[in-house]
């Protein structure tokens, strides 16, 4: 193992993806942590795209990772806005009560 291969990055991105999904399963009550776990999952997708693009010598993957960044920023903004109005209405961010939003 004297040189970097795509497998290194692929397994790293899988591990980061698992950690993000694990956090989604564990923190069922804290809405901020759920948003942060989604950011971690998107970071794993980014690592996968960029490393594949570098190791296949094809630039399109890096362009797609820029688009992923855009969507992640938009998603974070909307999610945090929903979080703020939820906290303003309820006084807490417990996600188990969020089905009351449909009333």
């Amino acid at each position, binding site marked *: *193992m004297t040189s970097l291969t795509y497998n*290194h990055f692929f397994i790293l991105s899988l591990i980061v*993806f698992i950690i993000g999904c694990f956090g989604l399963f564990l923190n069922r009550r804290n809405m901020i942590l759920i948003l942060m776990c989604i950011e971690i999952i998107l*970071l794993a997708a980014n*690592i996968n795209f960029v490393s594949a693009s*570098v190791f296949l010598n094809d630039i399109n993957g890096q362009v797609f990772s820029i688009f992923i960044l855009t969507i992640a920023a938009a998603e974070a*903004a909307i999610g945090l806005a929903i979080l703020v109005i939820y906290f303003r209405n309820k006084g807490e961010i417990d996600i188990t009560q969020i089905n009351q939003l449909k009333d």
Partner: protein
Amino acid sequence: MFLVGSFFLFAAFLITTCIFVIFSKNPVNSVLFLVLAFLNSTFLFILIGAEFVGIILAIVYIGAVAILFLFVVMMLDIQITTLMYNIKKYVPLALLFAGIILAEIIYLTVFKTSKVNIDTFIRSKNNTEQIGDVLYTKYFIDFQLSGIVLLLAMIGAIVLTHVYRPTIKRQNIDSQNSTTAKDRVQLVKIKPGEGIKDD
């Protein structure tokens, strides 16, 4: 050898900080560990020669998204103790999920190995030039669409969090445009020794 050593250093830091993001009791600590995780992935991207995406990740994620998270966490005043209870109920489901993906990793590492080596490539242009060549030609429509997505996200966030207060004085453009000088200014002739009488 330096490349592999740096990779393992940054990868270990990345995984550790991601774990700390999940298991921190205080959400502020989680956000700061998230910043550290993004920083480590930036180092990884620069290490394999994707400088542009790495720097964009640092600017967009650390400079904008993580700080947005930090503002919201500090603004909301959450009781930390109530959030972390009842965690044991979900551990078996999470372990099952993680086990499936771990099996996939083992399958990939044992049976499939990629032989592509990073050192063999010769780059005629630098990374930013390569991205710019395709981003503004081949992906022009996608580029514009991602701008529209960001605009929609901005408008949506403002509309969601905006609070209408009727007591605030606002600019009324119609009444401003329809006023004449007579409505605003009154000419008064003052006779000597009398002063101005209020009506």
